[in-house]
């Protein structure tokens, strides 16, 4: 038995296809991103080693920091929206008929491609024929907002479809976690006279703290690297008002052929995501001790 199941050739045959793909297409590229970040390079010609110049430039690049600020703002919004998702999930996980159907309906936008969602919301926000401005006009509001062309509101306008897209995903996660809370605990608390509010806040919430922590990491990291809807709807515009780290990196590399500088931004993004993941996990570690 042991001999058969520790046959080196078989193990290599089973593990290597996946392992090589992971190395060649995921790990080697992230190391190369760091390496290219030390170069001046237009993507076609020869690379020129310039040390940490790209990273120095990054520190002084106000456009980059403005984009990073937008990414940070998205992260804050996303974490705040988790509260709303959590409330919906707590309602759903109570004694609600059709909870299963509700959470499936909520999930539908999450299954659509970002391009389809972006194109759809570009029509919804359309200045004259979009459903929102048509409604605002019908109730007598003149000078309806230019949702995607106004530098003051464009970032918020893009955030709404992001909420719309991800709501079902987070509700699904919270719902599953809440349903896993042992019923005996809830019943015991009810018999002791706890109100539904107390049961939710003092019993269920601490018990799903681990899951909440995971969703905070997902929301923050997902926001910091966010790209898709922004790229299709505004390409970071107008005037950089919706530029984020990933869209700025993409433009530097594939629009202006600053592959070296683009790589430095990409490497910064990677490090940022890893550090943020580490710190959120560390900061919230104590809550994990709660046992069922």
């Amino acid at each position, binding site marked *: 038995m042991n001999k058969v199941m520790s046959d080196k050739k078989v193990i290599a045959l089973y593990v290597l296809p996946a392992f090589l793909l992971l190395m060649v297409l995921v790990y080697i590229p*992230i190391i190369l991103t760091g390496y290219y970040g030390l170069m001046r390079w237009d993507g076609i010609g020869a690379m020129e080693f310039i040390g940490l110049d790209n990273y120095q430039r990054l520190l002084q690049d106000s456009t980059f920091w403005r984009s990073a600020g937008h990414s940070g703002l998205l992260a804050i919004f996303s974490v705040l929206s988790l509260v709303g998702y959590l409330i919906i999930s707590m309602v759903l996980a109570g004694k609600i008929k059709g909870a299963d159907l509700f959470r499936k309906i909520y999930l539908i936008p999450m299954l659509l491609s970002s*391009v389809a969602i972006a194109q759809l919301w570009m029509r919804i926000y359309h200045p004259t024929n979009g459903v929102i401005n048509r409604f605002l006009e019908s109730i007598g509001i003149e000078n309806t907002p230019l949702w995607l062309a106004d530098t003051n509101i464009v970032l918020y306008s893009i955030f709404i479809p992001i909420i719309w897209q991800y709501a079902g995903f987070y509700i699904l996660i919270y719902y599953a976690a809440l349903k896993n809370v042992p019923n005996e605990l809830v019943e015991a608390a009810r018999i002791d006279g706890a109100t539904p509010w107390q049961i939710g806040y003092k019993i269920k919430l601490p018990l799903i703290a681990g899951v909440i922590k995971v969703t905070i990491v997902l929301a923050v990291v997902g926001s910091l690297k966010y790209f898709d809807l922004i790229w299709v709807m505004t390409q970071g515009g107008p005037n950089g008002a919706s530029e984020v780290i990933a869209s700025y990196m993409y433009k530097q590399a594939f629009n202006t052929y600053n592959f070296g500088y683009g790589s430095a931004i990409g490497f910064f993004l990677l490090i940022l995501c890893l550090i943020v993941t580490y710190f959120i996990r560390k900061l919230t570690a104590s809550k994990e001790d709660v046992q069922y």
Partner: protein
Amino acid sequence: MGIDQSTEMPKRLSDKPIFQRVAKIILYVFLIGVAVLQLLPLVWLFLFSLKNNQEVFNLPPLALPQDPQWGNYVNVWTQGNIGQYFFNSVYITASAVILTVLFASLVTFAITRMQWKLSTLVLGLFMVGLMIPVHSTLIPLFNFFLNINLMDHPLAIILTYTAFNLPITIMILLGFYYTLPREIEEAAIMDGCSVHRLFFQITLPMTAPVVATTAIINMIYNWNEFVFVNTFISSDKFKTLTVGIQNFIGQYQTDWGAIGATLMISIIPILIAFLVLSNRIVEGITAGSVKG
């Protein structure tokens, strides 16, 4: 009233029936309101896909089309390359799903069933792969595919999808493999069954449910993927639906019916998959997220 007054708590209901009923109604109105918000944009999309511009501009946004323009669908399907994009999406998605599920199953089998020293390290590398932002790999991957002549080739996309989906697929498979009883496999080895036969004829069929779940999750990810295709594919003949419709819609800036029909065609396969497989999709998304 069709509202939940389950048999479990008749006493409490009679204690304060009116308050309870009103509270329940408010909760249902809230949940239904959220469901309407999630579905309304899609209903509006469907409605304007069947209208001509005159109706889009003059009728109220949610009015039914007076004379449904099914021709919009026929036109966009026959005029552009939508059929080609659709076909590309199908075979690229299918190839990547098959490769991912097969390679991931082989690795998971080797990690959970076979004895080798590096198994923990290899598993760790796959799990860390979950945290790597794709944008940080774009520039090196672009350069790599350029150098090995796979730029603008579907194989670049298929291999990239496979590599990036392996970690999440392995994570979901792992949970199932750990709970699977080993007696059958042990007996088979005792009887002189080879490892290959064991894997392909016994283990793989036993894991069919979780394989199906991961396949569906992979299918949705791949069908909707945007950045890789947008970056690595330039020929129209290789574009997938997600990227193809982005360019295609550009030509129809002003024809709302055509835009709506194009978007509907791109999301219908996902909506059908959801109607048929919603339980598995819910299960897969939950399994793929909670462990983060």
